[in-house]
Structures are given as C-alpha cells and as structure tokens.
C-alpha cells in the first residue's frame, strides 16, 4: 500500500517523530489565534522555506498535496472579495494554508512504521492492555492488506459488468462489492479461529 511519505530524503526525516507531532500540535493551536495579514504571511513564508529546505522537487510534491485545499481557498477568497472584507479573507486563508501545509510536511517526512511505533508507545503509556493493542495492530494490518485487494476485486466486478453491457456500472456494483467484503471478513475470521484465535 502506497503511503504519503516522500521518497526524497530531507533533514526532517531524521527528526524524532514525537517532537514533530508535538511541534505540529503547538503550531496548529498557535495558528488558530493568528489575526494579522503580516504575521500570517510571515508564518506562511517560514512554512514555504521549510519545504524548500527539502529541495525543489520535494516542495513540488508538497504543493501537489495542497491541491484539494486550493479549491476552498478560491471559494473563500471570492466570498470575501464579494462582501468587501479582503483582509479578513486573507487571514483565514493564510491560517488554513499554514496549518495544512505543516501537517502535510510532518506526514511527508515521517514513515508509517515510525508513527505506528509512537501510537503503540502512547497506548501502552495510557494503560491500554496488550491484548487490545494486539487487536488494534491486527485491524490496521487487515485494512492495509485488504484495501488494495478490494479495489482489485471491484475492478474485476466492473470488467465483468462491462463485458455484458455498454451501460456504466455505477451504484449497482456497490451491493456485490460490499458482499465481497463481508465474505472476506467471514473467511478471515474462520482462518484466525482455526489458528488458535490470534487474539
């Protein structure tokens, strides 16, 4: 399964995961109270510089991850231009962009197994029983394994539909698709039970 971690090595990849996550929490909280365009632009500039430290290619990857937010940015800007409160709109946009961009930076520079290790340690510290932690780990592994498998099976269903009609499959395939997931779940449960429960 593809993760969003960047293959391009940056200095941030070596930073401790806990420090990155705590830093991100504090930054997001602070950004929420930001109410001046100048400070907002300064903060955004620092975040952009932080991306550029990883190189041009890395910054482009970061820009691509921001694409879904840009649609909202356009709507918010148009709205504020229409009501004549441009400065207020600029603050809202800078706040949004800075928070999302830094969170994406943490995601792009932290490996999945490192975040999982932090979660595991945090759960242990919170007193979550080892049994429950094992169940959680197994659930995560099942989702990571079965998502691409379900997509593949969905593709096969779609091909079977297209072989029979030129109409688009649409929602009619969701029922057999969900049935596949249910049957897979039953089979995996049987397999787990047969191996002594694993839980």
């Amino acid at each position, binding site marked *: 399964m593809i993760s969003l971690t960047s293959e391009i090595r940056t200095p941030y990849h070596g930073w401790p995961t806990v420090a990155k996550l705590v830093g991100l929490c504090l930054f997001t909280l602070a950004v929420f109270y930001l109410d001046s365009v100048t400070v907002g632009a300064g903060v955004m500039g620092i975040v952009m510089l932080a991306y550029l430290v990883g190189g041009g290619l890395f910054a482009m990857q970061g820009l691509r991850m921001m694409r879904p937010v840009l649609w*909202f940015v356009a709507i918010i800007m148009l709205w504020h231009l229409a009501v004549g409160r441009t400065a207020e709109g600029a603050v809202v946009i800078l706040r949004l962009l800075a928070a*999302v961009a830094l969170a994406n930076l943490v*995601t792009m520079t*932290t490996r999945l197994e490192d975040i999982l290790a932090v979660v595991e340690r945090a759960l242990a510290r919170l007193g979550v029983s080892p049994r429950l932690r094992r169940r959680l780990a197994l659930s995560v592994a099942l989702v990571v394994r079965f998502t691409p498998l379900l997509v593949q099976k969905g593709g096969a269903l779609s091909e079977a539909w297209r072989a029979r009609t030129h109409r688009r499959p*649409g929602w009619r395939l969701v029922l057999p698709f*969900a049935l596949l997931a*249910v049957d897979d779940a039953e089979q995996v449960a049987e397999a787990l039970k047969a191996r002594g429960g694993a839980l």
Partner: protein
Amino acid sequence: MERNLTLIALFAALIAALGLVPKLTLISGVPISAQSLGIMLCGTVLGAKRGALAVLLFLALVALGLPLLAGGRGGLGVFSGVTMGYLIGFPVAAFVTGLLAEMWRSRGGFIFPAVAALIGGVVVLNVLGIIGMSIKLDKTLADAALLATPFIPGDVLKCVLAGLITQGLLKARPGLVRA
C-alpha cells in the same frame, strides 16, 4: 470476537475502496463520492458500535498517513483543513445511523435503513461539518451552511442507495447482524 474484528477491519477497507471509485456528477454539476455511502453502510449494516469502530479505524489510518480519503488524500493535513468537522463527524454519523438502524431492524425493507442514514449520515454529519467549517473559516453557521448546501441532493440520493444496499446485503447474508 474474531468475526467482529474482521468485519470492522473489512468495512474500514470498504470505505477506503469506495473512495477510489470514480465520482458521479449530479445534474447540478456537483460531484459526489461513494465514500460517505461507505460511512452510512457501516452504520446500517454493522450497527452503532461496530460501525463507529470501523469508521474510527479508517480515520486512524488516514491520520497515520495513508492516502485513503476520496481523491487519494490523507495524512495529518486533512484534519487541519476546512472539512475537519466532517471527518470528526464520520464516526458520530455511523454511530447514530447504526443506533437507529438497529432499533428499526425488525421492520425490514429499505425505507428504515435509508431514514437512519438520512438522520445520521446527512443531518448529524452536516451539523458537525458546518460547525467545523464555521470555526475554521471564521464564519457564521448560516454562512458555512451555504457552502454545504450543494452537496445535500447527492447525500439524499446516497441514503436511498444505502437503504437498498443494506436490504440486499441482509437478505443475502442474514447472519450479518449477529454480533
């Protein structure tokens, strides 16, 4: 126990897989993704507790950095974005939908699960989503509600589909509701 765990995991995988299905476009031109249909199905098929757990598991994996949201989005950034209210609302929506679906299970048909999905997956989800947008964008609730309005017809359509699919699933696999 194993069965509950695998159903929760596989429904989390189903939500992710539905996010990768190409979007449909309504006559109004607004695209709708099948992912929120997955959230509704978690509630109507698995019930309140297992449904909410499946959605929580899915969100945990998104937060960990897997690109499982519609359009290949994921990571911590999505929880800082404008739609964070909807993401927080997903497990609540599945829970409310499941609670109502379980209550009305004996009545059968597709109408009751569809209504459960409408209350949980549209009303509750949009209330939380709109509150999230109003906080994130510094807008009044009414202004934020305007942004959500174009998506409501698609959501209502998904409720009907959730009702029909749930009816079909429970007919094909009646043991599914057994915890």
